[in-house]
Structure formats: C-alpha cells, structure tokens
C-alpha cells in the first residue's frame, strides 16, 4: 500500500509539533511528510525568542537539530512560500513554482504582527517582533539609538521592551488601554506590574493613542498622541496584537471568520475536509488562540483524526488561556476569568505593597468555585489555583485563604485582621507589626492598655488604635480567650448596643445613660462615643451643656487642636466650590489674625494658629460672609470632593460639582462613628477619586454609579460598586440608607471600610439590607436621616449668638491674658509653631 502524503504549510512551532506527532506515532510509516517554510530556517522556539538578545543563537533556538527532518524522511523546503492551492488537483503551489500533491493538507501558517495604520508606521526604524529576522533588524536599528518605544503593553510588548532594555537603550512602553496586559490583568494587577516594570527602568505610558509618527527633533521620530502629548524616540516596535495568517486560505475560498482566521471544527478540519488548520491561524468557535499550548493540542487532534481516519475521540474543545510567565524577572500569572466578567462573580484581592505582590481571585456567585485569578509579583499559588479552576474543585469556606500568606505552619486563616500577614505593620509610629502584637498577646497582654505597655503600639498618634484592638481581639480569640467587646469599663456594652438602648429608651443625656446602664464617671472613650450617638439620634447642638463635657476638645471648641494648643479653622466649601468674594474674606481674616493658610487634601482651606479666645471673633466674620462650619473637628461628614464635571470639562457626562454641593449640604452635620468622606466624579476618569471614599459617585451616560465603603488613610480600600445608573432620587435614597445603617451598627472609630470588611455577608448582605430591604428597616433609616437633615444648624452660627457659650473661649477664666507658651516663627512667608529650642530665644527675635 502506498504511503499517504501529508503536506504541512508553515514550519513554525505548531507545524513542527504536528510532524513530531506523526514521527512519534505508531503509524509513521504510512505517511510521507512534506513541509514548506517561508522563513529561511526550520522551526524554532518563538516563545523563547527574546533569549536571542541574551546571547542564545538561532541554532540554539531550533525546535529540532539541523538534519532531524532529513534523517526522518521528512521533505523540508526552506525559504519557500506556498502561494496557491489547487483544490481539485489537491496540490500546493510554491512561490518558485513547485507543485506538490497532498492527500491531507495542514495549514500551520501562524500569525503576523498587527501594525496599526498610523501615519508614519512604515518608516525605516518602525519594526515588529516575531521572527529572528525581526530581531536582527532591531539589533541593527538599536546600534545608533538611545531610546526605543514599544507600542502595545501586552505580553509580547513587554517582552519586546525587555529586549530593548537588554540592548541598553531607554525603553518605553506606550499602551492604548489604561493598564498593562489588559487582556490578562485587572486594574490592580496592571498597576502593580507597571510599578515593578518602571522600577526596572522601563517607562510605561498608559491610555496613549498614537495618531502620528513624525520626524523628531532630538531623536529619529516624534510620536504624537491624541491627548496632545509627544514622545521622541529613535525606534518603534509594534506589538499591538497578532492577526491570523489566512492569506492562502482566503485565496482558495476556505471559510474564514468575519475578522479573519481559518474556521475549523472540533477536529481542526477547515471547510474542506482534507484541509486542516492548526495553531494561530485557526479560528475555533470564534476564537484565535495566541499561545503555543492550544496550538499543540490542535496538532494532536489533527494528527489523531488523520491516522484513525476519523475514529478518534480526541477533539479540540477550546483551551485554557491561563498563563504564567516571568516578564523582566517579574512573575505574572492569569487564570481563567481573571477580569471577573462572569455575571454575579465576586473577587478577593490581596496586596502586599512592600513586597510588591498583588493577588486576586474571582469566584462564582455562590463562592463555591474558582473562576479566575491574577497574580503579580509572586505566582507560587498558580498551580493550586489552576487546579481549582480547571477541575471545578469546591473552594474552602474562606476562598481568600488561597491567596493569603500562611503563618508559620498554620493553615491560612479567614477574614478580618487574620487576613494580614504577620509582617504587616499595624502601628507605624512605633513600627509594631501584627506579629509583635500577637506575640505580646501570647505573652499575656489581654487589654489594650497592657498591649500599649508591652509594644508601645497606639501610643503615638493613636491612629492605629482600632486596628491594634482588632488584631489583639482576633489573636485572643485564636487563643481561646473570651474577648471583651465592652466599649470601656463604664459600660458593659458595645457601641451598637448603646445605640439601641439610647434610641429605644429615648435617652437624651449621657448621665441618664450612665445611671441606668453604667458605672463610674465615664471617660474619654465612652463620653465622646455617647456624645456622637446622641448627636446622631437627636441631633442636638454640640455646645449644649449636657453634651459639652462629652466632647473631645475639637468638638468642644469646634476647631482642630494643634500640637501647640492653638486651633485650626476649616470653613465648609461644599464640593470644593468657593466664590471669589468668599475667598477674599478668608484671605483677609487670615491676614488680620496672622493665620497659616493651606489648601487641604479635602478641597478646602485650613487656617492654622488661632488661639481659643480668637475663635469666636474669627467665626463671626466668617459667618457674616456666609461661611458655615466644615466639621473638620467632628466625627461627621467632612468633604464631598468633586471634579468640575460636565459644566466645564469636555469629558464630563453629568454635573458632578452640582451633585457634590447638593450632597454635602444634605449630609453636613451628620454625626457618625467616624468621619465620612464623599467623592463625585463627572465621568470614569475619576478626577474626584470617588472610589477611595466612604461614598463614591461616578456619572455614567445613564445616571450615577454608587460606590461604598472606600477609604484612603492608613489602610486604603477600594470602594465597592453597590448600584449602577441610578437617578438622583434613588441615589440619595440609597446613600441615606447606607449611612444610617452604618451609623447604627458600626463600632466606635470604625470607618465604613472596616465596618464593611467586618460585615458578615459582605456586599451581598449590604445590598440585601439597603436595596432589597430584607430587614424591613429602610423606612426607618430614611426617616432618621431626614430628621438629621431637617434639624441641621451651623454650630458656629448658633454659638456666636450666645454670650454664655462664648465665655468658654477664654484661655484663662480669671485673666484676659494670652497663653505665653504659644510662640510662632516664620517659614516661607507664614507662621508656624516655634520649636522648644526656638522658644528659648528672646521673644523680640521671633514673630
């Protein structure tokens, strides 16, 4: 019986694999193999192409040694392109006119780099990155170059950037989308990768649309971007994606996909049953697979189909595009639905900034299956995660344990502070880590006081106290010690319980509460807490004398105490808007009282260095000019940050500034467990950084997107999208509910972010309460909020009209003198508190 002839067009990685399969198969003797290669050499390892720059020779890269084909009876035509197929005669025709008949034809023609049709793309030093010849051209071009740009920040683009970097020229990556590797990585992963790559000396430019390549002034070329910016460079490498090489198939009328690619069935047959297509040229189920592994699977399927004359059960059913690679020494991996596109999916993210590790997993709606993952900086978990994803293994109860670092020996733990690695710094003032805290707890510390003594944690700025307490409690729980959640020694209750007691028993004063439910005299923990609850529930004036002793000095003086005993003044500027007239008043007041003036991070102006006794006079002038208190001192609404929005901005899709002003005016004065910040952006560019705020709002084409429980500060948290495309009425309704639910149930000094992270059931639960009204409390929540809104009064306005209240603003009860210990010196044209050293200089020499 004569041998069947199989002709393989294209001797790339996949074409080679097919030949290898035949040669290694049982039926090799029944086939005669002929292959054509357009390239001037036999198949080489394209995946490791970049190593060519690092010194690997073209021969080192070959898939099989020179002579391998010939020795195994394979006829190979190098540098010989197939230009036509005679379907009737079943013959292929080469560029030099060679005709070879086939029984079965394999198209393994791969793909070619896509070069966007930017004017100037065909200039001499505009190159691509796919073959050894390309690399040689790059090498030659780089000789006299000092800089090079890679257009495209995908997997290949980064490889190319690495190559430029190795050639010791300044490498840039210009990426059209907003992040690197946008196909594989989510925003956080892309950001971490960018950070790491930039650290290696490659400059990354995201969201850049190149519109022209002109001649340069200081380099060969000047790239011009749609945003008006330019970048000069000596060479440009296009790595903007690949296109299937389907030219030949097209010519002879084989079925193609609408956007190219040779259509194949599960057996890898094209529309002509004797012609197969495998590798990057093949389109299966509407998809092109730009990785080598799926190509190899196709090579196996086509082989099995041919040798068993269609009896095989091996069919191509798609391929997993999960990848794990090292890009410029950085581990990057992506599995399955890494971007969380599956409807209803949830995700967990772990970021270790110091170690530059980013991990995220995407799980199914019921949290039982792993759908995808992104790993940047450390990809050790890749194997395990891939197993979960590929085999549909049931996830553990806390799926995030899969990406959290495990403590020495112990199994990785679940949510809350347990999620932090032992090395996480909890108190930055005294560099106390989670490990240090746990260690002290193991050595017997059981209260925050004992812990402070042992570690100094929370004894500096105190800002870490809440987190320290959480870590301590969780460690105590781990040790089986019952955790005391009482707010302090005076009340055997949590904040939430006190809230309920106050509301249900209609308690109006601290002392009534203390008598009925507490002991002792109260302290600096329970007094402000109860003061805040009373204000949230009854919204009475903070200067009322029953409330007065409960207030921290900031609330008490309605200003922020500074290190030298003076105060700062922050008038409200809703949405960051201020009229020129008001701005002039601020400037005049600051000048008259010699106050240090600074624009804050909250889009308003802070005046520092006012003495307690000056506060009423200053405020009288401010109130007369129409200012209100900004509550910078309160655990209350701080600012609603805004961008200019559609009124001015060419991209804005709605009036973000207007909404910000409206919201700030609605919620000003609301007292809460901790401060609350909003942000409103006019479009997804997000200039107001709304997703880092307790309440974030972003305008969309069809309404407003509402994000909740974001945080900047010590432990930043990206806000969660809770509802999309809302009209304003619904938006405000949801905000009312979320905020009041938070005010009712959070712990003292718990920001919405921490509250949310401790909320059992997470986002779904919050949605069910504030959107679906599962607890049937939304009516109450809205009514409570409306009460707060309706009873708002500017505390300063009220105070300056009350001489009794103003009496408290003297420094000395028995003398009009000033505090002589408050001394200022001048820096950069403004005052600042003198240091202790400076205070020793005679007064005449200081301001």
């Amino acid at each position, binding site marked *: 019986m004569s041998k069947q002839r199989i002709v393989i067009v294209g001797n790339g990685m996949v074409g080679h694999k097919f030949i290898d399969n035949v040669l290694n198969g049982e039926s090799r003797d029944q086939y005669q193999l002929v292959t054509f290669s357009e390239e001037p050499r036999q198949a080489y390892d394209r995946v490791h192409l970049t190593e060519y720059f690092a010194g690997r020779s073209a021969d080192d890269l070959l898939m099989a040694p020179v002579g391998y084909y010939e020795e195994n009876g394979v006829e190979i035509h190098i540098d010989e392109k197939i230009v036509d197929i005679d379907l009737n005669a079943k013959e292929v025709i080469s560029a030099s006119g060679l005709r070879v008949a086939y029984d079965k034809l394999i198209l393994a023609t791969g793909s070619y780099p896509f070069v966007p049709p930017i004017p100037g793309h065909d200039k001499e030093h505009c190159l691509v990155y796919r073959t050894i010849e390309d690399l040689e051209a790059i090498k030659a071009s780089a000789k006299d170059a000092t800089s090079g740009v890679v257009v495209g920040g995908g997997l290949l683009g980064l490889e190319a950037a690495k190559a430029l970097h190795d050639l010791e020229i300044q490498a840039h990556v210009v990426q059209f989308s907003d992040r690197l590797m946008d196909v594989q990585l989510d925003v956080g992963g892309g950001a971490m990768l960018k950070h790491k790559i930039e650290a290696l000396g490659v400059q990354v430019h995201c969201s850049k649309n190149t519109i022209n390549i002109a001649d340069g002034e200081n380099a060969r070329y000047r790239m011009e971007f749609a945003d008006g910016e330019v970048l000069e460079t000596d060479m440009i490498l296009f790595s903007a994606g690949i296109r299937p090489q389907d030219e030949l198939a097209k010519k002879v009328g084989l079925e193609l996909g609408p956007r190219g690619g040779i259509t194949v069935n599960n057996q890898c047959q094209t529309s002509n049953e004797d012609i197969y297509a495998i590798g990057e040229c093949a389109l299966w189920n509407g998809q092109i697979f730009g990785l080598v592994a799926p190509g190899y699977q196709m090579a196996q399927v086509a082989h099995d189909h041919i040798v068993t004359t269609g009896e095989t059960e091996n069919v191509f059913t798609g391929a997993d595009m999960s990848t794990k690679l090292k890009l410029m020494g950085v581990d990057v991996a992506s599995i399955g639905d890494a971007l969380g596109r599956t409807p209803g999916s949830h995700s967990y993210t772990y970021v270790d900034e110091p170690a530059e590790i980013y991990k995220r997993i995407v799980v199914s709606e019921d949290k039982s299956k792993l759908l995808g993952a992104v790993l940047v900086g450390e990809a050790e978990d890749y194997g395990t995660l891939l197993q979960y994803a590929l085999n549909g293994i049931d996830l553990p109860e806390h799926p995030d344990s899969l990406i959290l670092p495990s403590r020495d020996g112990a199994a990785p733990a679940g949510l809350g502070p347990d999620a932090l690695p032992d090395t996480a710094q909890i108190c930055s003032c005294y560099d106390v880590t989670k490990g240090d805290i746990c260690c002290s707890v193991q050595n017997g510390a059981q209260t925050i006081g004992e812990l*402070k003594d042992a570690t100094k944690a929370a*004894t*500096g700025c*105190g800002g870490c106290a809440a987190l320290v307490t959480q870590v301590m409690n969780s460690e105590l729980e781990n040790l089986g010690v019952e955790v005391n959640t009482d707010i302090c*020694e*005076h009340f055997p209750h949590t904040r939430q319980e006190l809230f309920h007691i106050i509301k249900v028993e209609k308690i109006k004063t601290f*002392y009534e509460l203390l008598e009925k439910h507490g002991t*002792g*005299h*109260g*302290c*600096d923990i*329970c*007094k*402000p807490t109860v003061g805040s609850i009373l204000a949230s529930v009854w919204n009475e004036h903070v200067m009322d*004398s029953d409330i*007065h*002793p*409960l*207030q*921290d*000095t*900031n609330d*008490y*003086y309605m200003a922020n*105490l500074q*290190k*030298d*005993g003076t105060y700062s003044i922050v008038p409200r500027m809703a949405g960051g808007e201020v009229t020129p007239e008001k701005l002039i008043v601020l400037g005049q007041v600051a000048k008259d009282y010699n106050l240090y003036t600074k624009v804050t991070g909250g889009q308003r102006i802070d005046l520092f260095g006012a003495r*307690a006794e000056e506060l009423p006079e200053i405020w009288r002038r401010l109130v007369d000019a129409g200012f209100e208190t900004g509550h910078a001192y309160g655990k209350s609404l701080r600012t609603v940050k805004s961008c200019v929005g559609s009124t001015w901005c060419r991209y804005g899709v709605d009036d973000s500034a207007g909404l910000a002003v409206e919201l700030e005016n609605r919620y000003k004065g609301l007292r809460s467990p901790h401060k609350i910040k909003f942000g409103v952006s006019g479009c997804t560019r997000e200039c107001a950084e709304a997703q880092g705020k307790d309440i974030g709002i972003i305008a969309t084409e069809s309404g407003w997107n509402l994000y909740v429980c974001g945080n900047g500060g010590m432990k930043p948290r990206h806000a969660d999208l809770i509802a999309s495309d809302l009209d304003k009425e619904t938006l405000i309704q949801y905000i009312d509910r979320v905020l009041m639910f938070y005010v009712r149930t959070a712990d003292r000094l718990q920001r919405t972010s921490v509250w949310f992270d401790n909320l059992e059931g997470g986002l779904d639960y919050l949605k069910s309460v504030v959107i679906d009204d599962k607890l049937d409390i939304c009516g109450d929540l809205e009514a409570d909020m409306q009460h707060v809104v309706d009873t708002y009064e500017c505390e300063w306005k009220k105070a300056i009209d009350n001489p009794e209240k103003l*009496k*408290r603003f003297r*420094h*000395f*009860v*028995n*003398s009009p*003198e000033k*505090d002589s*210990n*408050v001394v200022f010196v001048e820096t950069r044209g403004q005052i600042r508190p003198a240091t*202790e050293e400076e205070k020793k200089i005679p007064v005449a020499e200081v301001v």
Partner: protein
Amino acid sequence: MSDNWIEICKLEDIVPDTGVCALVNEKQVALFRTRNDDLFAIDNLDPFSNANVLSRGIVGSLGEKLVVASPIYKQHFCLETGTCLEDDDVKLSVYKVKAEGNSVAIQA
C-alpha cells in the same frame, strides 16, 4: 506653702464635669469641677506635648481614680495626685481648691 488663697472665678463659670484654666502667680493651672461639685486643680501644661491644654481634656474615672485625659496624646492624669496613669514617673503639681459660697479659690 502659704495660706494665701486666690479667688479665681464663680462656680457657675465652670460647666460641671469640665475644666477651665486659671492664671495663678504666672502659672497656668487647670481647674476642674465634677458633677458633684468637687473641685480639683493640677498643672495646665501637658508634659507630653508641652502645650497648655489639660484644662480642655475630658474628665472621667478609671477604676477608682478621677482623671483628665490630655486632649493631645490622651494620657490620663489623676486629678487628686497629678500622677500620669500611663507613666508613674510623670507627676504634675496639684493645688488646693475650695469653693466658698459661689466663689472658687486656689491656694497659691
């Protein structure tokens, strides 16, 4: 210590459960009134921040001790002895205070 009492203010000038600052012989004294109208006086200078602010702290109790919490870094000082609860080595001066009728006086 002399027997010299200096009249400072009226009792009603101090809101119950809070403090005020008095100038006594060039020295700043923090003067506190509890809800039962007991009076206490200690230094106004917070030794941890070097700011004259203790009169503005929150008054309360820790265990059996009546205390004021510094408004700056929150250390507690015993109103009766002036001792810092967080650091035994730090001790503030205490002053004798009395109320005669409606008038509050400190011993200088």
